[in-house]
């Protein structure tokens, strides 16, 4: 119906590899892009800063994690630590007087180097053992941040993000914060989409799917696993910096604890491993569903339609949320992205279902 393949004829190889070969996809992306770009015009400050902005940043972070977990197939359960390294590095660098643009890249580099150190140690192991090794990273980094006052500013201290500007725009301004987060999400999206059509991305997938077959075709498994850790940690660190400067405005070690790591993994899994749209859907699900559920149940209770104890009221959203995650993963183990893909494939040939191959 909408997604029509007829009339799409490629005559050059580069055309078959463009980002969205189907016109409807291109229009959809353009509409979404314009909606996000104009969001400050039609969305209230509250929703912009508390819903849309964190969603964009967490989506970007999920995209960088899905590069490692989905594309390269290396599990990482300490990703919040990577983001913490980025966030703290950026703040300290800006405090030392480094311009934000450089501090931003510096945050990525510090996170990438430390992430790679753990990665290199972890690359000798696979699967569950890699999970344990990355968990160790989470706790070690947490411990160092909490116990080294030079980093955290003291055991239970909150470190304010200093006043900074990016290309003459101050972070004190809500618009700057939103547009910078938006830019970062677009940047990560483009990177992930390009990864899927270059030799770099194919080498990563080769390592994930069959490492011995990859090595006989000339892909060094160790090099590419390390590159995956480096690239992913680099962007993860930068996402942490964006989170610190655009959303939290002040960082504490608890903001990057183990539970955040599991949330990130949940975003990747619920969204769909290695999928770009999945990162957005997964982040939205993990981030927004608890909020919507709490608000909805509170509203129901206020209206008198739900008479339960205050204790149960607090836990009800969590119970529904957990059931929803299980439900979605049971219905479609490949995540929300696959559900979207199924719908798209349906419309691709609708109403001539028999023509599907």
């Amino acid at each position: 119906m909408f997604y029509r393949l007829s009339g799409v004829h490629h005559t050059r190889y580069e055309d078959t590899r463009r980002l969205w070969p189907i016109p409807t996809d291109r229009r959809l992306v353009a509409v979404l892009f314009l909606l996000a770009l104009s969001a400050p015009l039609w969305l209230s400050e509250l929703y912009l800063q508390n819903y849309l902005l964190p969603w964009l940043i967490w989506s970007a972070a999920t995209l960088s994690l899905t590069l490692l977990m989905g594309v390269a197939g290396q599990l990482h359960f300490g990703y919040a630590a990577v983001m913490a390294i980025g966030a703290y590095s950026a703040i300290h660098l800006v405090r030392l007087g480094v311009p934000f643009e450089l501090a931003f890249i510096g945050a990525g580099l510090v996170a990438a180097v430390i992430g790679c150190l753990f990665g290199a140690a972890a690359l000798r192991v696979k699967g569950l053992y890699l999970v344990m090794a990355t968990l160790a990273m989470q706790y070690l980094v947490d411990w160092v941040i909490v116990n080294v006052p030079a980093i955290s500013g003291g055991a239970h201290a909150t470190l304010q993000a200093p006043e900074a500007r990016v290309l003459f725009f101050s972070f004190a301004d809500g618009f700057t914060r939103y547009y910078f987060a938006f830019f970062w999400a677009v940047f990560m999206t483009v990177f992930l989409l390009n990864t899927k059509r270059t030799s770099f991305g194919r080498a990563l997938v080769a390592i994930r799917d069959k490492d011995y077959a990859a090595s006989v075709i000339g892909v060094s498994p160790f090099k590419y696993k390390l590159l995956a850790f480096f690239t992913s940690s680099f962007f993860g660190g930068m996402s942490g910096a964006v989170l610190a400067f655009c959303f939290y405005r002040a960082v504490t070690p608890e903001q990057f604890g183990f539970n955040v790591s599991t949330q990130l993994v949940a975003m990747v899994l619920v969204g769909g491993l290695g999928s770009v749209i999945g990162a957005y859907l997964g982040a939205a699900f993990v981030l927004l569903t608890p909020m919507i559920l709490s608000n909805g149940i509170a509203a129901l209770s206020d209206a008198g339609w739900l008479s339960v104890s205050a204790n149960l009221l607090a836990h009800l959203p969590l119970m529904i949320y957990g059931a929803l995650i299980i439900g979605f993963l049971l219905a479609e183990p490949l995540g929300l992205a696959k559900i979207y893909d199924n719908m798209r494939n349906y419309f691709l040939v609708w109403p001539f279902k028999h023509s599907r191959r």
Partner: protein
Amino acid sequence: MQQKEGGVATTAEAARRVALRCENVNRWFGGLHALKGPDLAIFQGEIFGLVGPNGSGKTTLVNTVTGFYPPQKGRVLLFDEQINGLPPYRIAQKGVARTFQNVALFRGLTVLDNILVGRHIHMRPSALATLGYWWWAKKEEVAHRAKVEDVIDLLQLEDVRDEPVDVIPLGLQKRVELARALAAEPRLLVLDEPMAGMNQEEKEYMVRFILDAHEDLGLTILMIEHHMDVVTSICHRVAVFNDGVKIAEGAPRETINDPAVVAAYIGASDAA
């Protein structure tokens, strides 16, 4: 110091360049002596068959050549350059490509992308080029796509090009694996049972494709195969392995009728 070249070695053949030479290759797995120092020389442009009963060390030999199990003793030379001891990806960069007995394709990729991975050693992959795809990667991708399309054309894979590899039939999967190896433009192609699990028609197709590739690309091929009809019809020479030792070598028909070979396969008859 050279080993015997088998029955058909003529002066003209002896003058040909040796593509792969294995000298006294030994490999142990714990207490199992899987390769007991066979010597082997494969000439450039030759299709060389490796046959023998199960567990005779054929695949182990191939794995020592491609670097999976480096020989604990002995040498492997590719065009007179020592390659034993190098990791598999370095050996691949030197121009050795192989296929596997049980198909080892990348299941998350399409047929086209699988074959494109074969171009890896000729490309310059980097995260930075990925970031600036339009300026730094596009031209290279298109150039290598053209090369891959030549291979797709040669192996007649046009209509499955965009399919995910795990949905196409086994016969085609084996062909895709051959295409991936060919895309690397190897100097030595190693085929580990390319016809395993195929029916007669698929086998005939595969033989045709191997011969086409051999002719068009001027390849040297080392092939493990159990189908004796295939071996006798396309191999220039064969070596027979049994229990880690080379028991015969030479022209296919004579070699597989060698009494020692028959004995290895069906057991020696005492009454004879």
